[in-house]
């Protein structure tokens, strides 16, 4: 009952006119940012952090803005994958498989609105799951001491590699780069300057916004440069803009199933939207069997990944809010934003600042409804944005990125650092390293070191404290499972190949 009254209170916060306008602005900005090639939810949220701060928004409004931008970006990414067959990011690859054929058949408007609807249902299921489970998890998480937190973070990092699938080693190295980068700057416990090379500007570490924008925006600008020769023509969105009841009913079961799946995947650290959408699509395809027209414009093939993405995005907020451990790149950015406001996400957040938590949860509901409604009148305008050529777009992205970086500290050193990080990010991308583990590592790194040192201070240097409690023991067991997963996958692939050879 407590939960419901808190939720009501949250709706009170989110439905205040000021916050409603904030959410609407956020969804609009987010959709446009998500639409543009080269900008995704991570950049969108990161760019807005300094701006939200400079605008002097109260923390709950800032958080609502960021959440709305997050959801808006996801929606915007959908538009480019359905109309252009270009997935804005890894998670929407599955959307293109059936969304683009649908658009080619003249059902672009239906595909877009149906995907927004599916994502809304997914988010709804996940938000309900969040309402049910987050307070429980938060209550349970209070039992976590520094040692348990340390192990939990080890688990989050290892889970990234275990879930990522095809390249666990590279994911692992990327996460370690992030973990290491978090150690740059003055050490809070002892006052020792680490890896600063006597540079004043590095004394308080690498700024999070600089890292994010360098890694994602600058490297993307360089990647876009390779693709300028290739023109893409968007499919015109004509005809019906909204799906009808029959279409919605035909995918309703898929929505429910994939929503639950997506929520579960979102809560797991490291799994996130990419894996959730892939698993959802594959499962539905297998369940439909030969009767489905998967890959040729099947409604279910569009609804399944979209529901899963919507659900996992909201699910990813659960570990972030309750444990303070982000599960995805974007939630890592949101933690960065929260720390700017001096809010430490974690179990105590639910007790100390219920307004923020429940206001955020309620605004997720509202932002999702807004996105469905926005789809009908705005889609023509959004499709026009897709026609903006790269030569006009890239300078704007570069300059806005520079503003975002400059806004943090007002030093040009950060701009140089951003370019350096951007080049590094570009090289890493060309070598097929995933970038978001770097961000997760960077966010987790500081916490991890603090908790490790705190735990060992408690035990006076005795390492045994790291596996003395039942919670940490079971988390270690999960770590082992996650480490074993990629090995198991390699082994299975190898034995499958041998079997194929034997058959031949």
């Amino acid at each position, binding site marked *: 009952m407590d939960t419901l009254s808190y939720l009501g209170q949250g709706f009170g916060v989110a439905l205040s006119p000021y916050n409603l306008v904030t959410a609407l602005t956020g969804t609009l900005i987010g959709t446009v940012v998500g639409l543009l090639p080269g900008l995704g939810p991570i950049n969108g949220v990161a760019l807005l952090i*300094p*701006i939200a701060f*400079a*605008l002097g928004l109260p923390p709950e409004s800032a958080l609502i803005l960021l959440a709305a931008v997050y959801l808006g970006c996801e929606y915007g990414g959908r538009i480019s994958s359905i109309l252009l067959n*270009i997935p804005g990011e890894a998670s929407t690859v599955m959307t293109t498989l059936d969304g683009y054929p649908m658009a080619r058949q003249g059902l672009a408007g239906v595909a877009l609105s149906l995907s927004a609807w599916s994502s809304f249902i997914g988010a709804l299921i996940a938000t309900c799951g969040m309402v049910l489970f987050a307070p429980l998890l938060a209550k349970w998480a209070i039992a976590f001491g520094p040692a348990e937190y340390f192990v939990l973070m080890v688990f989050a990092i290892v889970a990234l590699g275990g879930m990522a699938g095809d*390249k666990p*080693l*590279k994911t692992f*190295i990327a996460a*370690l780069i992030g973990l*290491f980068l978090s*150690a740059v700057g003055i*050490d809070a*416990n*002892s*006052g*020792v300057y*680490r*890896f600063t090379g006597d540079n004043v500007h590095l004394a308080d570490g690498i700024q999070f916004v600089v890292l994010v924008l360098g890694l994602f925006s600058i490297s993307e*600008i*360089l990647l*876009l*440069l*390779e*693709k*300028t020769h*290739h023109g893409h023509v968007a499919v015109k969105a004509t005809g019906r803009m909204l799906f009808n009841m029959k279409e919605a009913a035909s995918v309703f079961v898929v929505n429910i199933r994939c929503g639950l799946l997506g929520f579960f995947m979102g809560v797991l650290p490291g799994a996130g939207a990419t894996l959730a959408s892939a698993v959802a699509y594959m499962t539905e395809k297998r369940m439909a069997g030969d009767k489905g027209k998967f890959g040729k414009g099947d409604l279910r093939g569009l609804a399944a990944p979209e529901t899963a993405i919507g659900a996992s995005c909201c699910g990813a907020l659960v570990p972030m809010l309750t444990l303070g451990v982000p599960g995805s790149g974007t939630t890592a950015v949101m933690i960065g934003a929260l720390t700017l406001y001096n809010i430490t996400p974690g179990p105590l957040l639910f007790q100390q600042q219920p307004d923020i938590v429940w206001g955020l949860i309620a605004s997720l509901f509202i932002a999702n409804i807004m996105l469905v409604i926005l789809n009908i009148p705005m889609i023509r305008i959004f499709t026009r944005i897709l026609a903006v*050529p*790269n*030569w*006009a777009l*890239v*300078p*704007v992205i*570069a*300059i*806005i990125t*520079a*503003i975002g970086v*400059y*806004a943090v500290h*007002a030093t*040009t050193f950060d*701009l*140089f650092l951003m*370019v350096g990080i*951007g*080049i590094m990010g570009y*090289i890493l991308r*060309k*070598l*097929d390293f995933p970038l978001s583990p770097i961000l997760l590592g960077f966010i987790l*790194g500081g916490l*991890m*070191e603090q908790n*490790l*040192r705190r735990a*060992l*201070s408690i035990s006076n*240097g005795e390492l045994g404290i790291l596996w003395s409690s039942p919670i940490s023991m079971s988390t270690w067991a999960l770590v082992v499972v996650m480490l074993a997963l990629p090995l198991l996958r390699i082994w299975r692939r190898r034995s499958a190949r041998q079997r194929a050879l034997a058959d031949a």
Partner: protein
Amino acid sequence: MILQRLFALVLLAVCAALAVMAWPYQAAFSYEPVGPRAYPLLMLGLMSLGLLYLAIRPTPIVHKEDEPQLDRESLIKIAACVGLLIVLAATFESLGFILSAILVGLPMARLYGGRWLPGAIVVVGMSIFLYWLFDRVMDVPLPLGLLSALEN
């Protein structure tokens, strides 16, 4: 493959250099058993292990369909783009936001295949608009640089 090995080895060397750099980090006086040195060394050590494996057995890079092979022309363009970004960083404060944005934005628009006139219109208009939007409306202070003489 060869690039990947090279990258792993270079990063390995960087790790080693950073580890040497981290070696003298010791707190002058301390109340805790773990000093400031342990955590970075642990991370560098783990990273080195991973990189060593990568150097010995590089994983094949999967190329996406829409990703063209890097040729000489693209590499020159990328170097030019990086150069422009560095110029932006270097002139951001001295020239001021508007001028440096125009100085860098225009060649960048050319680099991405725009023509001079439309590029100039977009870049100039956008620099002034963004300055107004961020500095005046949203309270994100941006340097005015040379143009500050025009103020008042």
